[in-house]
């Protein structure tokens, strides 16, 4: 290292220190890489492990980390020098300027989205865009908004939200494939519309059943118990084969009908009734609007509830539980309503999911799903409805896009599979988001109820970690 460049003032860039930091980071990285990256154990024909050596990979990673650490030092130095100028004010005012138009514009866009895709890609090519992007993202928006009631408004960390999603999905699947054909066969085409409220109610019931014993726990403990419940429900679904058909799952679940008119090629089907040429795209577009209405309903209910006493009690509970209790709020009932209502929307989403897939198995309801929904709520900025939308588009859409990156195969060779990396990218993104903005993307929040003038609430005080 060059000693000639030793700085005399704090303003100058401390090259030696930056190099030392980078070197240290490199050493640590190399240490981390030694067995895990530099060797790979692979089975041979006799199922015996054989070592492959990949020192080049460890060296490449170390080099990258050294460079990244050095650039980070440079970046921090330049940021320290620009500290006097307040840059964020400009972006804030720009955001405030377009803010009133954001909601109607976004709303208009999501309403015409399937028709736009249909116009661009045609009936065959647009299914992927409406189904994989539109419906998939909207399901997560709805789940995010449902969980937002529990985590964002009431401040109860629920790591087992996927359990209610599963309850909704299995309720629909079991009722529609077993109960309705045997007992009420004439209701066949209406199965989805009858089961939708039932699934929501069953999920809410489960929310109350599971919530009642555990809601006096707080914070991390509650999180772990809800995780345990989520896993218990999944394990029961796997092992109780008579009830749920175990790993094999339930298939040929009836698809939703257009209010009694099925989507099929028959004479009474949707295409024939409306004098259209038969195409599976109509069902996809219809499903898109169903989930859109369902999720908007979730948002509407959330916004209304925030103004009712129970919603205010939720937010008060999130801010300070002890103060709530001393003001006479029944914390158990308040928490239980949040849990049950959140679960109900999870159940609706699950019912829709089962109807859209036509097949469900316990594989769809693993813990990772819960983590993903929670990540959406947290990244969005807890309690912010708009933030959940942004986070869903970024996470779910981003993951779907990773599937599409076929051109990377030409760069890294034919064995390179980008979808293999999507959960890795997801984990990295989750950690980085927390480091960058622990309070989420939309971290300022207007108070739900204003007495005379708007004041900052504690949520906006602690956004940069002051509380």
């Amino acid at each position, binding site marked *: 290292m060059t000693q000639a460049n030793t700085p005399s003032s704090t303003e100058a860039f401390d090259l030696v220190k930056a190099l030392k930091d980078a070197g240290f980071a490199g050493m640590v990285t190399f240490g981390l890489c030694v*067995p895990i990256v530099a060797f790979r154990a692979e089975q041979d024909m006799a199922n015996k492990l054989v070592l492959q050596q990949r020192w080049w990979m460890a060296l490449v990673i170390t080099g990258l980390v050294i460079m990244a650490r050095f650039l980070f030092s440079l970046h921090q130095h330049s940021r320290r020098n620009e500290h006097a100028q307040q840059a964020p004010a400009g972006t804030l005012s720009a955001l405030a300027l377009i803010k009133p138009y954001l909601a109607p514009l976004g709303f208009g866009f999501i309403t015409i989205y399937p028709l736009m895709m249909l116009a661009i890609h045609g009936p065959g090519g647009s299914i992927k865009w409406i189904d994989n992007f539109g419906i998939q993202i909207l399901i997560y928006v709805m789940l995010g908004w449902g969980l937002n009631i529990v985590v964002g408004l009431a401040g109860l960390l629920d790591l087992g939200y996927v359990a209610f999603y599963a309850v909704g999905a299995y309720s629909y699947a079991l009722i529609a494939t077993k109960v309705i054909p045997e007992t009420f066969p004439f209701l066949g085409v209406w199965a989805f519309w009858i089961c939708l409220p039932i699934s929501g109610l069953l999920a809410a019931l489960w929310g109350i059943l599971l919530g009642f014993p555990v809601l006096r726990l707080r914070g*991390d403990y509650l999180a772990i118990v809800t995780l345990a419940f989520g896993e218990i429900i999944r394990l029961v679904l796997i092992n109780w084969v008579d009830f749920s058909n175990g790993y094999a799952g339930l298939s040929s679940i009836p698809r939703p009908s257009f209010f009694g008119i099925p989507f099929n090629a028959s004479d009474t089907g949707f295409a024939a009734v409306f004098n259209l040429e038969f195409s599976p795209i109509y069902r996809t577009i219809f499903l898109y609007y169903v989930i859109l209405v369902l999720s908007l309903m979730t948002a509407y209910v959330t916004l209304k509830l925030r103004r009712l006493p129970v919603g205010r009690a939720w937010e008060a509970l999130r801010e300070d539980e002890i103060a709530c209790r001393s003001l006479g709020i029944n914390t158990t009932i308040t928490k239980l309503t949040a849990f049950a209502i959140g679960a109900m929307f999870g159940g609706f989403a699950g019912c829709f999911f089962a109807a859209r897939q036509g097949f469900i198995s316990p594989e769809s309801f693993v813990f990772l799903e819960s983590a993903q929904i929670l990540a959406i709520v947290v990244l969005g900025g807890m309690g912010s409805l708009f933030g959940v939308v942004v986070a869903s588009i970024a996470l779910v859409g981003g993951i779907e896009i990773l599937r599409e990156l076929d051109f990377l195969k030409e760069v890294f060779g034919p064995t390179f599979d980008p979808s293999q990396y999507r959960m890795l990218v997801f984990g990295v993104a989750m950690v980085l988001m927390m480091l960058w903005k622990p309070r989420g993307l939309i971290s300022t929040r207007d108070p739900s109820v204003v007495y005379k003038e708007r004041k900052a609430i504690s949520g906006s005080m602690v956004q940069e970690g002051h509380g």
Partner: protein
Amino acid sequence: MAIFIQQLINGLTLGSIYGLIAIGYTMVFGIIGMVNFAHGDVFMVSAFIALLLFLVATTLLGFGIVPALFLVLVLGMLITGLWNWTIERTAYRPLRGSFRLAPLISAIGMSILLSNLIQVIQGPRNKPVPPMFTQVLPLFEENGYTVGIGYKQIVIMVVTAVLLGLFWYIVQKTPLGRAQRACEQDQKMAALLGIDVDKTISLTFVLGAALAAVAGVMYIMYYGVINFSDGFVPGVKAFTAAVLGGIGSLPGAVIGGLLIGLIETMWSAYFSIDYKDVAAFSILAITLVFLPTGLLGRPEVEKV
């Protein structure tokens, strides 16, 4: 009776592994009040490190099994400690003093990151390890059923006991242990008295990871196979053990681990092996609801 004693031996072996992981949870919770969600995956990473080091030692360097295991144990503890140190330094320390859920969510992200990183760099398939210490020491015979204790079970219990003794010595008798216990009681006061709190927390993570590395070595020795997704369930079970024993209490973690191991093997033997994980998860829920402080924990008093 013979089956019961056999299951008792199996349960204690499994329980030692859970106990070793549980200490990592309980220490971190004790000192910074955070559930280190990624600890189960740190354990999984340590098992992979152990597997690779074992293969390097036996195939490339030509060591025998016993010296290879010793080398794996020492190096594995060091490298896993480095991993957990890096994780703490990058993902948790910047969030200290941030809002309550931030470190937990960061830890969940870290858990996803670790398991998928291993999947990417080591492949998604199960990794079988050549079996070692396969001999069984017969103890007694009853109605034609021989109760025996495997050599590897003896190794696991002995190594666990020795390392727990060493660990107990570190926490109770050395300056590092004193600093660690001081930070656990009152970080601000400890800092005022000249203890480097950040360094102590880092060392707590390193110690927890070293014990998880021991558990990782024992795990691949006992089960003979490891997969990138094998961190989650042992992690939750070890957390259950920590909660059952009273989170924050070190002897509690060991006792909780042994109990969870026993309950799991007894449940598999007498009820249904399919529902053994359900049993473990139910114990977690039941303990938290009816006995939130665990067997040896201190009640949490919140001041306004």
